[in-house]
């Protein structure tokens, strides 16, 4: 997924617009976007009102056509399920807290943006963000600035850094502070049975 971002960065730097789409396509074909993508992550939040940084780690699964599963394993077990139509928070006791897209304007759009970021849907990212890249192919930084004030009031600027693959995502919080997410072991892997059940449950 993030290799596609890499490709985009390389080509932005190279400045060759037509070759860009050709290369993007060839790289895309190497990375199977039809298959689910999974990784481990650590997340660190630093905001002004906190007396220490908040750290959590866990696993995430992105399944095209379904959505995103964000499992936090430490320090608490929390699971977030994001699909086009709803957001479900599942607490450690299994209690679910669902918010449906019908009740919240902009939920679907926000979810799509998040999925675009995590699933590297470059086309969709370009719709919502102004992209700019610096660095070299071995170590690049991509800056995403929200295009609309609505998006900007929810998500601040994003900065993605990587080499062979994206390693860090820094999200500037709108209320001051930074969230830093680091990904490990990005790979294609099929959905587990319980994951599929979660995605497909109608709750």
């Amino acid at each position, binding site marked *: 997924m993030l290799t596609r971002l890499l490709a985009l960065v390389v080509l932005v730097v190279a400045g060759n617009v037509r070759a860009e789409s050709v290369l993007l396509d060839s790289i895309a074909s190497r990375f199977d976007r039809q298959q689910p993508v999974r990784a481990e992550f650590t*997340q660190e*939040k630093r*905001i002004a*009102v*906190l*007396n*220490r940084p*908040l750290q*959590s780690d866990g696993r995430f699964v992105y399944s095209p056509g379904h959505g995103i599963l*964000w499992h*936090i394993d430490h320090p*608490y077990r*929390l699971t*977030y399920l*994001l699909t086009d139509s709803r*957001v479900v*928070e599942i*607490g*450690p*006791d299994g209690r679910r*807290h669902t*918010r449906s897209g*019908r*009740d*919240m*304007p*902009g*939920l*679907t*759009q*926000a*979810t799509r943006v*998040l999925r675009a970021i995590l699933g590297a849907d470059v086309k969709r990212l370009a*719709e919502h963000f102004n992209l700019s890249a610096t660095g070299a192919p071995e170590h690049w930084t991509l800056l995403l600035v929200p295009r*609309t*004030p*609505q998006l900007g*009031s*929810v*998500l601040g600027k994003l900065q993605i850094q990587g080499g062979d693959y994206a390693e860090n995502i820094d*999200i500037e919080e*709108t*209320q001051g502070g930074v*969230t830093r*997410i680091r990904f490990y072991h990005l790979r294609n892997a099929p959905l587990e049975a319980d994951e599929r059940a979660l995605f497909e449950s109608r709750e």
Partner: protein
Amino acid sequence: MNLMRRLWAVVALVCIAVVVLLANRLPLQTNLLALLPATERNPVAEQAVARLADTTSDQAVFLIEHSDPRIAKSAARHFANRLRDSKAFSAVLDVFPLPDPSTLVSYYRPYRFGLLAVSDRETLETGQMDVFQRLTRKLYRPFPIGPSASLADDPFGLFDDWLASLPLRSTRLEPDDGLLVSRNGNGVHVLVTAKLDGSAFDSKVQRRTLTAVEASETDTARRFTGVSLLRTGAVFYAAAARETAEKETDRIGLGSLAGIGILMLLMFRSPRPLLLAVLSVAVGLSVAIATVIGLHGELHLITLVFGASLIGEAVDYAIQFFAARAAAGPAWNPDAGLKKLLPGLGVALATSALCYGVLLLAPLPAIRQIALFALAGLTAAFATVVLWLPGMSQRPARQAQTPLFSMLGRALTAFRERLTPGLGLAAVLILLVITAPGWFYLRLDDDIRLLMHRPADLLAQEEIIRKSIGAVQENQFFLVEGKTQQQLLENEEKLTTRLRRMVTKGELAGWQAVSDFVPSQKHQAENLEAIRRHVSPDPRVTKKLLEDNGLTAETARKWLDELANAQEKKLTPDAWLLSPLSMPSRHLWLGNTGHSYAAVVAPSGFTDTAPLAAAMAGLPEVTFVDKAGSVSDLFAGLRRLGIGWLVVASALVWLVLSRRYGARPGLVTLAPTLVGMLIAPPVSALLGVPFSLFSVMALMLVLGIGVNYTIFLREGGDGNGAALAGVLASAATTLLSFGLLAFSSVSALHRFGTTLAIGIGAAVLLSPIALVKKRGPACA
């Protein structure tokens, strides 16, 4: 007599002048609501209906559709710009000021301790809230979804939950690049709305709007291939109704006149009768139009279309006059002829006037206007025939005994010879029996849509737009009242608690109410109490909890201080109404109506209104308003009442006939019409026409008009071929007119015309039976 003639000339000329002057600018009323009486017992409810109708009636809604979202959006913007350029609208909205999440949050932030989502309040009060878990969730939530408050303002996510519970979106539309968009399987629909520069029912506004819309659509479709544009709005229906009414009026009018022309030329072989007949009809219609416009100020479309079908009936008096002239042959004396004719014509007019007069009493303005039109028109035609025609037809008919008349005369004489009461009765019984099965097919239909003209393509577009937007039903809602604003809000909250239960049962999808955005102060106070008691019963414990989990001491202290002082800050409706956030819901707040404070709670996504009506039990200040349902109830009630009136009217008509012919002969004269009235409903039912108020109206007219033919036949004299020809011609013109009416696209008129044509047709066919001579025991 001369004075009367001159007076009539003046009246007629004035009316004709009025009509000619207004020719292209007839004040036509295309608004359906103008036809309906006030049906709600609560005057505030009528106000609410009118208010809601006003907010939507001058809006035009467009949907631009394409499978590529980018093209759809560009096309929508282009279309909106074209609409703006046309200057036909006072406002065109494609870009919607998105409820900016941060504006929402900052507006409600000072009041947040009084705002709790229903589920949270329940969880708090049942002691099940795990405060620690709530804090954890807020801290570790990876990304915010939708409007949310900062950690410092809302460490337990209670305010977030309330914000999430706001019914901000009552539609399927979502913001996308500043436009409002709905996603379907095969593409994207973009919404554009426009506010008309005037009333949707004003013909100038209609023309301007349609021209602008069509030009913008063509231009947009040319620039962006594959784009489809849909439209809906009261203005399009009204314009279509006007166009159709004008076309139908032309068709019925021209058809009737053509039929009259052919018949009269065939019968009388001379242009004079035709010209004078047309004169009487023209005067009749002019007087009718002038009378209605004079008394009502406007003419409704339905009256116009019906008026055209009156031509066939109004011409009857002239036809009878000329038939009498033909029958008299060379011995024609206009004054004597008129004297002989007058009683018959008079009785005919009297019976028609009686029946239209009954209709004049109907509580439905639509029916009253039609009755007034008909009364004025028929009386005027009668007056013209009686006052002027004799003077203009001094000479006898040139071709008195045409072969046609002789043939008819012979047939009539032969028929009368053969006719016995028994034969007559048998014919009647056979007819009744044959049509009897039709009664089983009788279907009742009192729907308000009877009066509406709803073209299929506009309906289809409206359906697609509704599905795409997921729009709220506008004419069924709750009206909530209260003596004060706060009482009103509290009453709303009582109602919405019940509505919430209905949503969980699946009887309702949701609702829109002001109290969701501005809870009553009582409710806000209760929420605050719940938070204090269950979230932070001991501030020191809470402070420790917050600090242990990462918040700075200062942050924790600030939150606790704000909680402690929260009762000073309460949301009020007045303040909220002034904020731009209230714009989408402002139409629900009726404010001070003079009787009380009132607001509308608009439910959506229901199919059955019974549970909604049940939700009001025990809430005296809540009324469920269902204008369409009330009107349907009214129609049904009138239909039932009307049948009683039919009986009364029949008795009255018999009385009138008795004065002239005697009691028993009067009944015999009435018999064909009565049979016609009994046959029309089952035959209509067999033709698939449902029975409704308008069927009853039609039967009333079958009574008033059908009897005329039996009267004319009776008056014509024995063996009089010309009389029979006259009756047949009169009947033919009337049947032609009302038959053409049966092709109207307005349900009410279609059913009306069908029933009328069948009833009168039967009455005419059976009228010769009324000529039966009494057979005494002496005859064999």
